């Protein structure tokens, strides 16, 4: 991409209302996202897609002269490498994550908790570690939250752990994995938007994650012994779902992390992880072939003898590879629209105007620049609670402000992702909190099944999402003290070297 966003570039699209009017599509989208996710609490990515489409149409009415330039800029934005890279990584990550799920990884982690004889006081700390492991393996904090609230949370509450603390600990684990996993959507966006390789980002991020995670673990141990719930004597429920073999997926997860950190392309790293995970699933009988991939036909025939062809009511394709990749489709469409709206802002001069304001008035030295980056990502993630969407929207500013002080791409990616991961699981309107809460409420929810003590008010959880809060604090402290700071001359991203 050229330096069109630079202050020296002339705007190519002229708007009625001047360069600030070029911020209308993205500005409208942000307001839509705040209203939808923040005010109404609707965590539907497809809804954001419609907001982006309407915003893009509205902006066109303010264009002076030929609207073709505006339309061309939409295509120019969508065809950027940054979007394509994230999309490819998401598709692979989705297949891998879902394959671990059908292979009994969650049940394996529950087995580990049972084998370690975790009691009510230590249950939240164990939930933090194990949910963190699951989220690091499957890359989606939302998925890990749903899995753990469904399976682990009731077991913990039944043996007397505090429901509020336990839910918060699960959310903390989700923050940890969303932040650190190489297959996490937010990790991928943070790396590719800052021109950094994903494996290198994960390795450089480890120091911040562990500095926040250790005190968070200790805090859960301490608070676990201070806060307790009513013992409902339900440890048996935990053992019912526990199976040891799913733990082999720690190896599948390790393969992805090790190959990515060793400098292999993320597509190669996840492909190897996928091969290992499918091998374990089929070799150890953790799942059937049709759990991984299945063609469903409506009538039996010779082909239905094949292990990946089944007979059902409606003809379809399914399995973990299918549902894992499909799950990212709404986010992929949304990403294409957000980067095209950002490109409209760049070509219309709005991007440069905001950037100059920040650089001239706020980010006047490197310390203030990093604090601005930390608080900027915190503010937008507090408003847009579907955290990957928020991250994509703020990413160009993190890149440009950071580059103006030669802050290394790894450091920029880490600043960008920390608040994105943390705040998406703290506030009551955050997407991560809402997906967990949805499991508790409703006619089929945990509350209906076990009783009202299984439903946690999201507001009560806020102060106890320790890893999320500590991550925010670590990054504010890092910006002020220079902990972990690296400059562009220090080292070059491997992906850039290979290009």
């Amino acid at each position: 991409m050229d330096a069109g966003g630079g202050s020296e570039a002339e705007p190519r699209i002229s708007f009625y209302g001047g360069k600030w009017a070029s911020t209308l599509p993205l500005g409208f989208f942000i307001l839509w996202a705040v209203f939808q996710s923040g005010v109404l609490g609707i965590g539907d990515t497809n809804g954001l897609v419609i907001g982006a489409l309407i915003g893009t149409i509205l902006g066109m009415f303010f264009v002076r002269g030929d609207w073709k330039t505006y339309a061309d800029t939409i295509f120019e934005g969508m065809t950027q490498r940054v979007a394509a890279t994230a999309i490819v990584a998401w598709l692979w990550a989705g297949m891998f994550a879902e394959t671990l799920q059908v292979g009994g990884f969650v049940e394996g982690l529950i087995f580990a908790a049972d084998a370690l004889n975790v009691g009510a006081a230590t249950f939240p700390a164990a939930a933090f570690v194990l949910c963190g492991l699951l989220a690091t393996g499957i890359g989606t904090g939302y998925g890990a939250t749903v899995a753990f609230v469904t399976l682990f949370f009731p077991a913990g509450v039944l043996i007397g752990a505090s429901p509020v603390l336990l839910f918060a600990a699960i959310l903390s684990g989700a923050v940890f994995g969303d932040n650190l996993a190489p297959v996490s959507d937010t990790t991928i966006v943070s790396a590719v938007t800052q021109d950094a390789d994903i494996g290198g980002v994960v390795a450089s991020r480890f120091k911040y994650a562990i500095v926040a995670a250790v005190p968070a673990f200790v805090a859960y141990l301490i608070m676990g012994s201070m806060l307790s719930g009513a013992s409902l004597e339900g440890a048996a429920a935990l053992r019912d779902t526990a199976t040891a073999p799913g733990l082999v997926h720690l190896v599948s997860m390790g393969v992805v992390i090790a190959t990515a950190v060793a400098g292999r392309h993320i597509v190669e790293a996840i492909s190897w992880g996928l091969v290992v995970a499918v091998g374990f699933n089929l070799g150890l009988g953790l799942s059937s072939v049709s759990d991984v991939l299945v063609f469903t036909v409506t009538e039996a025939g010779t082909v239905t003898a094949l292990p990946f062809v089944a007979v059902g009511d409606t003809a379809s394709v399914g399995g973990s590879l299918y549902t894992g990749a499909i799950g990212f489709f709404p986010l992929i469409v949304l990403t294409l629209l957000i980067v095209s709206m950002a490109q409209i802002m760049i070509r219309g001069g709005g991007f440069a105007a905001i950037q100059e304001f920040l650089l001239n008035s706020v980010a006047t030295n490197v310390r203030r620049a990093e604090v601005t980056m930390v608080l900027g990502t915190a503010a937008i993630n507090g408003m847009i609670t579907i955290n990957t969407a928020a991250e994509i929207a703020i990413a160009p500013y993190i890149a440009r402000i950071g580059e103006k002080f030669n802050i290394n791409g790894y450091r920029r990616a880490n600043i960008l992702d920390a608040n994105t991961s943390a705040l998406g699981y703290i506030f009551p309107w955050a997407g991560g909190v809402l997906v967990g809460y949805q499991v508790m409420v409703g006619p089929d929810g945990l509350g209906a099944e076990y009783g009202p003590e299984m439903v946690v008010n999201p507001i009560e959880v806020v102060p106890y999402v320790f890893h999320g809060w500590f991550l925010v604090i670590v990054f504010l402290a890092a910006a002020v003290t220079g902990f972990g700071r690296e400059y562009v001359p220090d080292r070059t991203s491997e992906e850039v070297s290979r290009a």
Partner: protein
Amino acid sequence: MSALDKFLAGWSFRSSTPDYEPGDAIEVMVTGREGDTAVARIGDSTLRIEDAPADAVNTRVLVAVDTWDGSTHTGSGTYRETVGESAF
């Protein structure tokens, strides 16, 4: 860089004014211009880059450091080649 080195990189409190030595060849983003001379701001240190292309701002360039003043954290260097561009 080994995998272990990648995990260990950055475990320190880094100065806001990094210093360099004459003879160093470093990659930097060109962050602006002072008159006709390209400038790279690295943290709160400043490197003036002679012979850089006119459109060098927001590109990543290889620079040979010629002089460096550790008290004012400023220096000058010579443009070698363009090796990359802005992430956005």
